[in-house]
Structure formats: structure tokens, C-alpha cells
């Protein structure tokens, strides 16, 4: 399973980072940083990635097989 970030839709509200801190964080400038390589969801982070997608307030994240 992959997780896709629509960079144009992301406004940096940071809810994904609160929900899945192992996958996303906001840097000191308020920019979203993706904490894994590529778009494959890291092992053991399936639930966290689903939560991050669910809480994104502006629909900028989605999961795709």
C-alpha cells in the first residue's frame, strides 16, 4: 500500500503529524516533512497511515494499493 501526498492541496495544518508522528512532521518553517522514503507505507505503519489520511482536513492525503 502506498500513501500519496497532493502537495498542491497540502496547506500545512499539521493534523497528520499530530496523528502519525512517525510518518509526518512539520519542520521549523511549518513545512510538511515526509519521514519515509518513496511512497510505500513503512512496515508496521498501516494503521497510522490510515489515520493520517482520515484526519487530513483538506483531503491532501490518500492511500492507494
Amino acid at each position, binding site marked *: 500500500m502506498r500513501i500519496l501526498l497532493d502537495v*498542491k*492541496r497540502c*496547506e*500545512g*495544518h*499539521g*493534523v497528520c503529524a*499530530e*496523528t502519525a508522528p512517525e510518518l509526518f512532521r512539520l519542520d521549523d*518553517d*511549518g*513545512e510538511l516533512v515526509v519521514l519515509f522514503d518513496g511512497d510505500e507505507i513503512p512496515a508496521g505503519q498501516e494503521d497510522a497511515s490510515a489515520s493520517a489520511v*482520515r*484526519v487530513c*482536513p*483538506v*483531503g491532501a492525503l490518500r492511500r492507494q494499493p
Partner: protein
Amino acid sequence: MVTAAPASDIDLYTEESIRSPYRDYRALRDLGPAVWLAQYQVWVVARYREVYAALHDHETFSSGSGVALSDAINERMRGTTLASDPPYHDHVRGLINGPLTPKALRKHQALFQEVADDLVDKLLGQSTFDAVTDFAQVLPLSVVPDLLGWPAEGRERFLPWASAAFNTVGPMNERAAAEVPAMREMWQYIAEMAESGRLRDGSWGADLVTAAAAGKVEKQLIPSLIGDYLVPSLDTTISALTSALWLFGRHPEQWHAVRADNSLIPNALNEIIRYESPARGFSRLLTRDHAFDGVELPAGSRVLMLYASANRDERKWATPDVFDIRRPNAKDHVGFGHGIHGCVGQGLARLEGNSLLTALAKRVRHIEVGEPTWRVNNHIRAIASMPATLTA
């Protein structure tokens, strides 16, 4: 399995239902995942799961032909970000969201905190004040018109215009019809501002005019996009800030918890918006047939999604009618909407709320509130007036 579509003659737009809507919301949730509102000839979706799903399926649940209930207002809304679908939506949202991102708003944080601290200082010196005019309106009214770049003239019309705009988002009842002249005045005023170059250089509004001059957006759309900034930025936030004072006044133990631990403030703001959602909900038009748990809605149906009901859905929330700033999933609320049309100003609202709650937490030991009277508006749920006293 196809079941007969549930229908109801509940009228969400009586004064009684507007002042105390939660019993009607629960009745609608219990009737089914989608309910035909006979009087208004629309479907209403009142449960959390279905509201969330619809908000994240913008291809089926289209905003492009408006998100109000009346054809006349839906026609007038064309061109706004609110009433749009991709790809146009993504284009215009990209034009207005720049200054509203949490990152861009950081530079205003110190100013907001200063205004909030001064306000709390002043209110501590008064015996009793009005929670709406003396507290909740002050910060939004002192920052939003400046950020938009609006000259001094006409600012006193912002609140009546916002109230009018939200009254007309529902059905075209008497309450909405009475606001049509105010709406006409607002759109004329905005058009003049967009034309005359009177908006302050470097402001949100002036940057849109510049974008049009550079050919990035059609000039005739500028008034609609200025409306996107102006209309939703005041009443909504003012409602939540008043509710904050009301709820903490009624739940002193939770106020003490916030004072002891300011890191509770962000979740408290989410819980306030969940518990008394300022925006009742918006509609969508179905682009294709859609079934909610066996209830079939045909293409072309207008569907009203009740955010305020979803936020009290007992299928989603444990003890939904209890105010609890420690609620672990409070951030799941759909009070800002959700998905691609999720409130573009939510970062601004959070910053205003954070500044005021931080200011209160620094100085105020006890919040005392009297009986609130509720506003009667087709869309906005808000306290109209409430006496309050702060004690250091």
C-alpha cells in the same frame, strides 16, 4: 438491500429548532443514513460516517452548482471557492489559501497575542461585560478587515453582511428573503473595492487584484474571491469564541485544567467546535446515483450535510452531549467541513482561538457567565448575547 427511503417533516428552520437543534438532529440521525426532508425537497445526511464520506467524495457530491438550498443563491455563489469543483476549485483555492496557511499566519501571532492580552486586561477591569460584543467580536474585527485590506469605510457592515450571507445559505424562507437587500449591498460594495484599487497594498484583497492584472485569474471572479475571505471569517469564529467562554464558564473544572496545562488548548478548541459547531452544514448536488446503506439517492438530488449533527452523532462519539476538552478524538470533528472544501481559514480561526485562550489562561482564575440568548440564523449557531465576568 434496498429499503424504503426514510422521510421526515421535521423543519430545521423554525425559531425553536434553530435555538435548540439537537433533538431534531438526533431524530434525523435515528431515521436513517439519509432522510428526505419533505418540506424542503432535499435529502439530509445527519450521521457522522455519511457526512464524512460525502465530503471526501467530491466527484459524486458536487459543489459546482452551489452549496446553499435555494437556486437563486446557488446561482449567485458561482465563482466562489465554496461553490466549485476541481479543476477550477484547485485553481482558485490556490489563489486564496497562501496567506491563510498556518505557516503564513505565524507572522501575525505576536500581534494577535498582544490584542488578546490587552483585551483580557481590559475585561478584568470591568465588573460585567457582554461575551459577544465586548469579548468574541474584538479580535476578529480588529484583525480581519486589516488583513483583507479594507479601508475604514464600510467595516461596520461586515457583521450584518456575514449574517445575511449565512441566512441565505438555507432555504429561501422569510428570514433569508429579508437579507437579500443586504446581500446585494455587500456584492456591490465588494465589486467597487475590487475595481477602484482601494484595498491596501500587500493585503489579501489587493493581492487578488494583482493576480488578476497578471492574468492568473479572470478579473470578473475577483469579487467572489474577496467574498470567500470576507463572509466566513467573522461570524463563525465569533461564535466559537463566545461558546468557549460559555462552556468554560459552565465547566470550571475544565477551565482549571487548561490553566494548569496550556497544551490542552488546541484540543479544547476542537471540542468547542465539535460541541457547538458554528456552521450548521452545506449542501451538495449528486452527480450520479448514490446509496447510503441501502437508501438510494438519484443523480440530481440536492443533499444537505449537517456538520453540527455529525459532531453529536452517538454512532461516532462516546457521550456526544458531554463537553470534554480531553476527548481523545475531538480533532475528528467536521465543524470546519472536511476534504477539499475544508475551511480554508481554519488556521486563522485556530490562531485567534489560541491567542484568546492563552491570554485568558494567563490571567483569569474564574469565568462566570449568565444565561445566553441564542441567535436566530438559518445557518450560524451562535450566542447573541451573554453576560460574563472574569476574575483574576
